[in-house]
């Protein structure tokens, strides 16, 4: 039994898993938040898809003999279209649009000539398998893809060949930027090392806005790959975000402002050398502004740490807290005595507290598990996140004001870009 909001998802996913005729009955959506009487009325009513009495249909599904089609065995290779398409430029744009291969904005048409130029920017062979990607781990079978598939998507996004190793590194992780959840989740890629300057990426004024080709296009390529390399991003089937998220257009691409940061670069924290080029991934709910919060009016040095603590108040502990700090904030924290990222993380972990009673009412936050859980009472205050490494920090921005932004996102992995050159 499936709530009707997931109708197409359920049918298509069952087919992709080898059960195209799986017997599914549908209820109205949602069941969450409905009274017992309302839910029972669903059962007494009709399946909104078939129009038949719901529970009679369920019982029939369990007791009606299988048809020959339902007992079929064998193997089917899903079609993905011809290797090439030939038509006029306008018709090809329309074809890509109609077949869900774009972000609904015009693309650069991936001719062989442009794809070949892209392929020259890597030492890897065109037919080498780069990785596997799925719109949601466990929920959909993963697709594989080659260097050439990635190159085609890079061309479509508007990439120049110099960007290709970075785009390949992103593809190699198999991380989809369009994760299929009802939560309209977002993804971030933090870029570190020499590649930032080689590609003339912007880590200064307006770094996270539409003010730089590399920042914009690398992010867009990630979205296009998340649609085309794994069959993702089909709303209602392989993408279920209830409201969607504007960040999904080209994701959060955050080149770190290493030269103006008082701290070691993010990738060095993760064990890479400063001279290596690395992309690090984050995943979670969303990003928000940190201006005007508690403590920021303090003089002579604003109490940035208090604002950071207060600003994560609405966050759910399912994901962590990623702070994107203008260099002025990072240096200001140093002036306040926080000389390392670990020191500010420890302070936040010890001072950002939430009551047990409130945690119990939250949807995506959970009480600590283990022996100590038995001693928790409603009036106790506990850390919002149980571990200090739930707080992560990246320095980015042009120092026009001491501001920070913060995202309810968790770190996932860091990978080498150099490996894909």
């Amino acid at each position, binding site marked *: 039994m499936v709530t009707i909001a997931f109708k197409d998802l359920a049918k*298509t996913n069952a087919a992709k898993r080898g059960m195209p005729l799986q017997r599914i009955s549908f209820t109205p959506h949602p069941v969450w938040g409905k009274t017992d009487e309302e839910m029972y009325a669903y059962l007494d009513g009709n399946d909104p898809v078939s129009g038949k009495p719901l529970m009679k249909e369920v019982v029939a599904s369990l007791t009606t003999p299988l048809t020959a089609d339902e007992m079929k065995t064998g193997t089917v290779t899903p079609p993905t279209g011809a290797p090439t398409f030939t038509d006029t430029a306008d018709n090809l744009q329309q074809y890509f649009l109609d077949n869900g291969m774009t972000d609904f904005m015009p693309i650069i048409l991936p001719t062989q000539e442009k794809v070949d130029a892209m392929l020259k920017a890597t030492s890897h062979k065109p037919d080498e398998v780069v990785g596997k990607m799925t719109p949601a781990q466990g929920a959909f079978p993963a697709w594989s893809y080659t260097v050439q598939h990635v190159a085609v998507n890079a061309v479509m996004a508007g990439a120049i060949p110099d960007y290709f190793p970075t785009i390949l590194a992103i593809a190699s992780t198999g991380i989809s930027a369009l994760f299929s959840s009802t939560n309209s989740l977002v993804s971030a890629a933090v870029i570190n090392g020499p590649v930032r300057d080689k590609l003339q990426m912007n880590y200064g004024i307006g770094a996270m806005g539409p003010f730089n080709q590399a920042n914009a296009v690398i992010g867009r390529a990630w979205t296009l790959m998340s649609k085309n390399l794994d069959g993702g991003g089909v709303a209602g089937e392989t993408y279920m975000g209830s409201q969607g998220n504007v960040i999904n257009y080209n994701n959060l691409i955050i080149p770190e402002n290493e030269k103006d940061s008082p701290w070691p670069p993010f990738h060095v924290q993760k064990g890479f050398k400063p001279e290596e080029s690395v992309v690090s991934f984050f995943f979670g709910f969303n990003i928000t502004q940190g201006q005007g919060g508690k403590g920021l009016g303090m003089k002579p040095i604003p109490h940035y740490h208090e604002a950071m603590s207060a600003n994560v108040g609405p966050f759910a502990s399912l994901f962590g807290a990623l702070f994107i700090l203008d260099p002025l904030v990072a240096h200001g924290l140093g002036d306040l005595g926080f000389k390392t990222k670990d020191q500010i993380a420890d302070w936040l972990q010890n001072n950002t507290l939430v009551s047990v009673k409130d945690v119990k009412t939250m949807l995506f936050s959970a009480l600590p598990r283990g022996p100590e859980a038995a001693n928790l009472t409603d009036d106790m205050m506990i850390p919002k996140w149980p571990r200090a490494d739930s707080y992560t920090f990246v320095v980015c921005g042009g120092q026009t004001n001491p501001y920070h932004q913060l995202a309810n996102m968790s770190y996932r992995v860091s990978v080498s870009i150099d490996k894909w050159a």
Partner: protein
Amino acid sequence: MNRRKLLSLMGMSPVALAGIPALAEQAKKSDQTKKEGAASAGEPKLTVLNPRGLPPPITLIPMAPRLSTLDGKTVYLVSDGFPGADAFLNQVSIWFKKNMPNVTTVYRLKAGGFADDDPKLNAEIKEKGQAVIMAIGH
């Protein structure tokens, strides 16, 4: 992927597909593209590459044989853990008590995330149950 072709290959009736608005809309748009393509014949043509990755082959799984009746049988009601599924399945249990009192229902919350397998529960159902109703959604 062309879902219409995929599902047709797998034995799903085009009639069943007609009930899925997204597929119907896609088919309509595809037809429009063909007409526009015909109208602009004579313009220079380009050949471009397909950006799609490689889906794995799908092995068709025959469904489990059906029961002749639910009378006297035990039906497991399995929640995937999304909010509300437990309360909803409780109403399903009540429905059986009222309408098919000879059916025994057993509620279980599947272990792991919604997409994770739960071999322990599957073994229990095979041993003690004769049918399963699984609730997906919230």
